[in-house]
């Protein structure tokens, strides 16, 4: 049994990492370029392969073949360490996210720990080190400013990030991400409670603070992943590229990989918490046959892709915040909203469970 567990876990890790996440990361870069082009009435990369679909491979070869340059004044060890630190947390986080129901009786989550969401936050908060150390070790002023900005920004938005999901766990009564999904299967998605006892008016009332919580969480994830309205650490116009200015070749690519991997895990967490994870109304779970298990996984990653599209859509619509605006928004607006939201849910919760 133990041996079986180890083998299936390894298969899940390898499968999810090399078959899903890494290709998804590289195609997220491609999708970003295509989406941005479409929004700006351009075509985007469409040369390599059909509709430019082999562009990520070409990009990878280009980046691998570029000169890997280390500035002389840089602190070499930390300079090399930083890009790895930027990628690692984003990929580790996916371990606790349930990406499917069951496949041949094996639950489709790598580690179903009872502190699921806290694990996500803890590991995501380590993501800042990659940027801060990268900025510091480059020994150059623009990367340094980027690193400093990023550390302050991430700390500020981690608060709203944490507080925004408290309502979800107040309703579910458990920090385990799988139980969040199971709850949503029974009672409908938090954003759109159509399944289960959807005639219950209190349930719909509960959807209002859930919506607020969803928006605050989403915006905090924007800030945590340094996506555009909050991409001050890499503001090209001010910092000449921010923390990755001195990086070249594959180390530079690793930073990009990290950013997109963080985006994917962020989307996966959003989908799990608010959009019912792998659940889709009318599709049974994996215990009814392996084909449904596969469909569940496909549903999950389709939802993730949809959320990633929203990320890109927002990025190519909104301009960047000024730094003081960013801080004020985080501390004086989202923080308070998330706090009040918790009280709102606490007020509604007793009634919604009574009916």
């Amino acid at each position, binding site marked *: 049994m133990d041996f079986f567990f180890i083998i299936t876990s390894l298969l899940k890790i390898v499968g999810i990492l090399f078959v899903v996440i890494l290709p998804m990361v590289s195609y997220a870069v491609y999708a970003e370029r295509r989406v941005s082009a479409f929004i700006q009435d351009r075509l985007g990369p469409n040369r390599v392969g059909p509709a430019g679909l082999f562009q990520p491979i070409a990009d990878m070869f280009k980046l691998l073949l570029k000169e890997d340059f280390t500035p002389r004044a840089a602190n070499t060890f930390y300079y090399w360490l930083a890009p790895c630190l930027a990628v690692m947390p984003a990929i580790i986080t996916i371990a606790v996210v349930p990406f499917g129901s069951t496949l041949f009786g094996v639950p489709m989550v790598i580690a179903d720990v*009872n502190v699921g969401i806290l694990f996500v936050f803890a590991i995501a908060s380590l993501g*800042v080190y990659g940027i801060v150390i990268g900025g510091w070790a480059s020994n150059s002023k623009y990367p340094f400013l980027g690193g400093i900005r990023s550390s302050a920004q991430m700390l500020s938005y981690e608060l709203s990030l944490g507080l925004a999901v408290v309502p979800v766990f107040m309703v579910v009564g458990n920090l385990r991400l799988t139980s969040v999904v199971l709850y949503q299967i029974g009672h409908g998605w938090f954003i759109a409670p159509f399944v289960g006892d959807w005639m219950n008016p209190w349930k719909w009332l509960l959807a209002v603070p859930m919506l607020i919580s969803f928006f605050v969480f989403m915006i905090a994830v924007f800030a945590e992943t340094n996506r555009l309205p909050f991409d001050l650490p890499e503001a090209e116009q001010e910092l000449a590229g921010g923390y990755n200015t001195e990086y070249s070749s594959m180390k530079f690519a690793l930073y990009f990989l990290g950013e997109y991997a963080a985006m994917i895990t962020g989307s996966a967490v959003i989908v799990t918490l608010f959009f019912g994870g792998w659940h889709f109304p009318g599709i049974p779970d994996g215990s009814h046959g392996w084909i449904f298990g596969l469909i569940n996984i496909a549903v999950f990653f389709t939802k993730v892709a949809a959320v990633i599209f929203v990320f890109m859509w927002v990025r190519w619509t909104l301009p960047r915040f000024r730094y003081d605006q960013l801080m004020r928004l985080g501390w004086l607006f989202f923080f308070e909203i998330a706090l009040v939201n918790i009280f709102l849910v606490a007020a509604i919760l007793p009634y919604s469970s009574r009916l």
Partner: protein
Amino acid sequence: MSPFLFWIFALMTLIFGAGVVINRNPVASALSLVVSFLGLAALFMSLDAFFVGIIQVLVYAGAVMVLFLFIIMLLNLQTEERRRINGLAAAGGIGVALILLVQICFVIGHFQAARQTFPPLARSTTDDVWNIGALLFSNYNLPFQIIGVLVLVATIGVVLLSKRQPR
């Protein structure tokens, strides 16, 4: 958890803990402390105390040390790296550490309970997050509330102190 993993994480905690003191570069010291915290968190998790372990990472490694790094980087402590090691002070420090070690060994040696091997812990059946929450809001509710007020007062104090004076 296998003793093998225990030794890995215990050594990781100790080595990087020593690294905090030995490193001349303040940033390197801070980062060693982060790794040391991670090892400690792993040790907590090996005792099925997932909540404590994760909070260790979330609060110390994720937030407090980032603030530390933030400050250290802003200060730009170049002189620290160039200073030569004072042999006498180093010898004194090592001496004090050794004396402390001997003392701890002595105390533990005379403490009866510490010399017995503990029976292996039973696999926990309840949720540790649930347990901590229940305890905090029942038995320790008053201290918990008091700490809450205390932290709130500290926060308000910081906001007041750091507020810009109106000219």
